């Protein structure tokens, strides 16, 4: 896990043959690190003004393929607004948002076809089974999955086999998150956004989710994750950014910051004191 999270920072000088020397489970991750990493999610000078308050102010942010970006911040900082803008559910007041080069505002349908979304509490149809939910949401995204493909997808997302054919109404939150990840996998999206995915999960389920998120990145997806959980974010993400009152106040490479430094910087910035963490803007 830790090795994978650091691969994005290794320079291989385009030596593709190096990848062949690696075990298969590492090849995909390494191959992404060998080519210039394409920016999949890009926000430029984004302003989001709601009546009475400015939710985002000149936000600039980018997430490359194979990277996980953790967007941290207190309640009301603008994390969910950012997620809604990236998914095209909101239109920015100004600025631009691109998914794999597609303008989210100009071509929302094309952009949405490239992006998958996992919310804090994945909302599935309770009367359907895990398999039926995945098949339905995949069908809506234009992919028709047969039952073996569906089961394989749920397996990849980590949902235990005996739950596949059970109605989702009996699922735990962690299980629903896994179906949410399966929906993202089945969509063959190029970017995934997660809104507080570990909120309310027990440590084991939260860890399991982090592993799955890293696997998504290892498959070349760009992951943008909004979170409250500093420590889980530092563990899961390649980059963490701190959003305070609609402005990105700091950005760190996760590997370069210790938990306690991150917490201190977070508290400093959130309480509107001078930034002290590395990479403070």
């Amino acid at each position, binding site marked *: 896990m830790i090795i994978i999270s650091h691969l994005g920072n290794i320079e291989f000088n385009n030596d593709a043959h190096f990848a062949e020397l690696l075990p298969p489970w590492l090849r995909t991750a390494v191959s992404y690190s060998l080519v210039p990493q394409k920016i999949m999610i890009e926000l430029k000078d984004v302003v989001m003004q709601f009546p009475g308050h400015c939710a985002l102010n000149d936000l600039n942010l980018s997430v490359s393929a194979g990277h996980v970006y953790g967007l941290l911040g207190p309640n009301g900082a603008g994390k*969910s607004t950012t997620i809604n803008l990236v998914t095209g559910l909101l239109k920015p007041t100004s600025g631009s948002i691109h998914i794999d080069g597609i303008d989210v505002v100009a071509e929302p*349908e094309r952009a949405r076809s490239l992006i998958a979304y996992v919310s804090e509490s*994945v909302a599935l149809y309770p009367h359907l089974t895990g398999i039926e939910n995945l098949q339905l949401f995949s069908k809506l995204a*234009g992919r028709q999955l047969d039952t073996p493909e569906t089961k394989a997808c749920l397996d990849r997302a980590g949902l235990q086999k005996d739950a596949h054919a059970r109605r989702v109404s009996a699922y735990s939150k962690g299980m629903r998150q896994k179906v949410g990840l399966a929906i993202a996998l089945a969509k063959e999206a190029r970017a995934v956004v997660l809104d507080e995915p570990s909120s309310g999960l027990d440590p084991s389920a939260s860890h399991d989710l982090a592993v799955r998120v890293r696997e998504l990145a290892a498959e070349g997806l760009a992951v943008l994750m909004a979170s409250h959980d500093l420590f889980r974010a530092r563990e899961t993400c390649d980059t963490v950014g701190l959003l305070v009152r609609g402005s990105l106040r700091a950005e760190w490479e996760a590997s370069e910051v210790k938990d306690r430094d991150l917490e201190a910087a977070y508290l400093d910035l959130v309480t509107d004191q001078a930034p002290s963490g590395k990479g403070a803007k």
Partner: protein
Amino acid sequence: MILALFSNEWRSILRDGRGRLVITLGVLLALVSAWTSASTHASKERAQAAAVEAARCAWEDREVDSAHSRAHFGDYVFRPSGSMSTLDSGLQAVTGRVVFTEAHRQNDAVHKPQQAAASLLRYDRLEPSTVLQILAALVLVLAGFGVISSERESGRLNLLLIQGVSSRQLLLAKTLALWTLGVALCLVVVGANLILVDDVDIGRIAAFLGLHLATLWVVAALVACISARAKRTGTAAALLLSLWVAGAIVIPRLSAMSTATLDPLPGRDAFQAAMQADRQQGIDGHNPMDERRNELERKVLKEYGVSSREELPVSLGGLIMQADEEYGAKVWDKHFGELEGHLLRQDASVGKFSFLNPFQATDRLSMAIAGTGLNSHLEFLRQTEYYRRELVRRLNEEDAFGVARSENGRLLRTTTKEFYLSFDSFEYKPLALGEMLGRRTTDLLALALWIFGASALLILTARQMEARRVS
């Protein structure tokens, strides 16, 4: 995509215990209403057939009496309820279907001018039209109040939109799912009717089905739109139930009561008194002291060139009776015309509420299609009166001319039994469907506006959903 969402909605309804309960109750009510209406209709038809037969036998078996006696003996006129009354009995329960026809008077036992317009509306009977107009709408409300709002509240709406579903597709799929629930109820009702009732009128049944499918489309679209616009599912439920109560119960009664208050019908006694007063201005065929009668007698004597009624080759009584009858017909035409105009004016006033309430447009059109509404009843009264006049005219003429003078100058009747047997029984000719609907253009226009408005609201709501913030 729409098909996938549509199928999922149906699966959701069928797998949900509340959905199954609502559907089961709806289907049960539909079946019970179809069965009770069909069995009631069958028993009424049997009773009416027996009554028609008895009346005919009484007419035919009666000893050969004088035509004038026969005119007072009279005849019963029956209006067949028609097979469509099993779907919508309309005003038949209020207005009745039997009239006793006789000389000198138009019996109004089955037509009650004192009845207020409120009586011309009915939502208190369990019959197929009530089930489809009122209860099917309630089923759609109960099944659909959360059809979009619950998607938003649960957070699924965002996931659906990101998966590529457009608001328009979502709204259309949900509306279609709700509407097909209504379609299913319509098919149950009409299917049961086709099985249980003989002598069905396919054209009218198709029109009846089309009418209710159109209304349920309006209901389904409104339910989906309100569910989409409401911030919370509870709000949508409260608003939709309030609208249902207003449309099904409050507005129909309000419209009837306001019409009856602002433009009241004359009371029965007042109506009869006015008729009587006018009638007294004419010839009194039974009063030998009546001056107008004596004037007619002089005129007839002059016409036949004789000096006394004993010399007349005809029965003066028959001629006087016919003159009396013709005058009475004019009086009836005047008063019934005024009453009919009044009823139609009230009906038009109530009809304006169709623009406010689609249930009222549907109710009135449903009665028109079934041939059980106000226009049909007035047409029945008109045909009954024409039948009565023709019956009495022939009897009066027979009374006047079916005579011969005996050698001693006595007037002998020559009427035979064959003469009485030559009378055909009354046969009601219902107005054609096109003609009935032609008299309901206001309601047709109102329903068309409701369909257009509800569909436009769907499009508008979908656009607003696209534009709405989801934070």
